[in-house]
């Protein structure tokens, strides 16, 4: 979950814009998990997610002075993350075009799942979840998938999603409507997430 205390966050953003390194480090701590999850849900690789997290915050730090509306920090940060993701995917596509293998295959996800927990039961649950999630994502168009994840995984508002995707609120809502409808018609995923409250990491 991202930071809820928006007033405190706003103060930190304002301080960070003035060059306060401690304030920026606090923002880093606040948003690290959210940005890490953003990358992991798209790439299914812990190492790539951690690297891209660093890259996102380094770029954010470099460009912070250009942020004219401190209250839009969250959406702005996710825009930077999105562009880091775009650059990463571009490199991966080029590599695959030339026949180089990417680490982001199913084997890499298996490895992540196995390393995340030593408990075979938890590993099995995690593996099952990502397989079902992947099957669900296959039903979505790329745009629907991104809008859906930005809304329900990254917890961005419609306005923030529109800003991140350089889109309109109306277009975001239309894609989100389609994605939610597909989610509603994916009972195999419902059964799984309904039991999620009982699983502790």
């Amino acid at each position, binding site marked *: 979950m991202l930071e809820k205390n928006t007033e405190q966050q706003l103060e930190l953003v304002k301080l960070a814009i003035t060059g306060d390194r401690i304030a920026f480090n606090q923002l880093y701590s606040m948003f690290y*998990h959210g940005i890490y999850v953003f990358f992991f*849900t798209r790439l299914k690789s812990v190492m790539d997610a951690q690297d891209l997290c660093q890259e996102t915050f380094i770029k954010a730090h470099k460009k912070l002075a250009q942020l004219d509306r401190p209250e839009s920090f969250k959406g702005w940060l996710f825009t930077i993350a*999105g*562009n880091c993701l*775009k650059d990463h995917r571009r490199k991966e596509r080029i590599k695959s075009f030339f026949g180089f293998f990417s680490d982001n295959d199913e084997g890499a996800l298996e490895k992540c799942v196995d390393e995340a927990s030593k408990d075979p039961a938890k590993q099995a649950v995690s593996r099952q979840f990502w397989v079902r999630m992947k099957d669900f994502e296959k039903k979505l168009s790329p745009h629907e998938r991104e809008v859906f994840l930005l809304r329900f995984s990254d917890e961005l508002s419609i306005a923030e999603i529109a800003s*991140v995707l350089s889109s309109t609120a109306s277009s975001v809502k239309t894609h989100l409507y389609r994605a939610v409808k597909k989610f509603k018609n994916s009972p195999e995923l419902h059964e799984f997430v309904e039991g999620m409250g009982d699983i502790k990491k």
Partner: protein
Amino acid sequence: MKNKTQHLTEEQILWSVVSDEDHPETIEHLESCATCMQTKANLMKKLAGLSAALHQMTPEAAIQPLDIERQAHQRRWPAGIVSRQVWQAVAASVVLAIAGYTGLMMRSMPSTLPDDSTVASLEFLFEDFSAHDSSLSCSYLETFAENEEDAGINELLELIMPDVNGTDWQPANG
């Protein structure tokens, strides 16, 4: 306007989940109908469950110290010698030459991968080409090509014809 004695349609429930601010009559109905409110709440609960699952099932990773000095994926261009455009033209020619060579090799010997030095050269060039920072512009959705087979070619074209007017690119010592 829908008759208040009728329940909301699936479409109306879905719209209310996406954003109810555009549909005042739906809000009005939901406020007075426990059945429809329950239908909406069930769907919202499942979406919240998915949201929790995505966070819970993401492998934990310890927060790493932020290395602000690191210039992530940004190699510097030799400064003061030639312009960025010239470097891009030279690099584009090399990419094309290697692309042609690699393409031929792969066609004639499908099981042979390029050697390590070719891989290193390509990775270097790709990093340089993508060193521009597009953080404040464009949607990243544009790279989600529906046709995966064309995606590599499209990306290569995008790389060898970069936006030379990009505002975020900085030459070394610039």
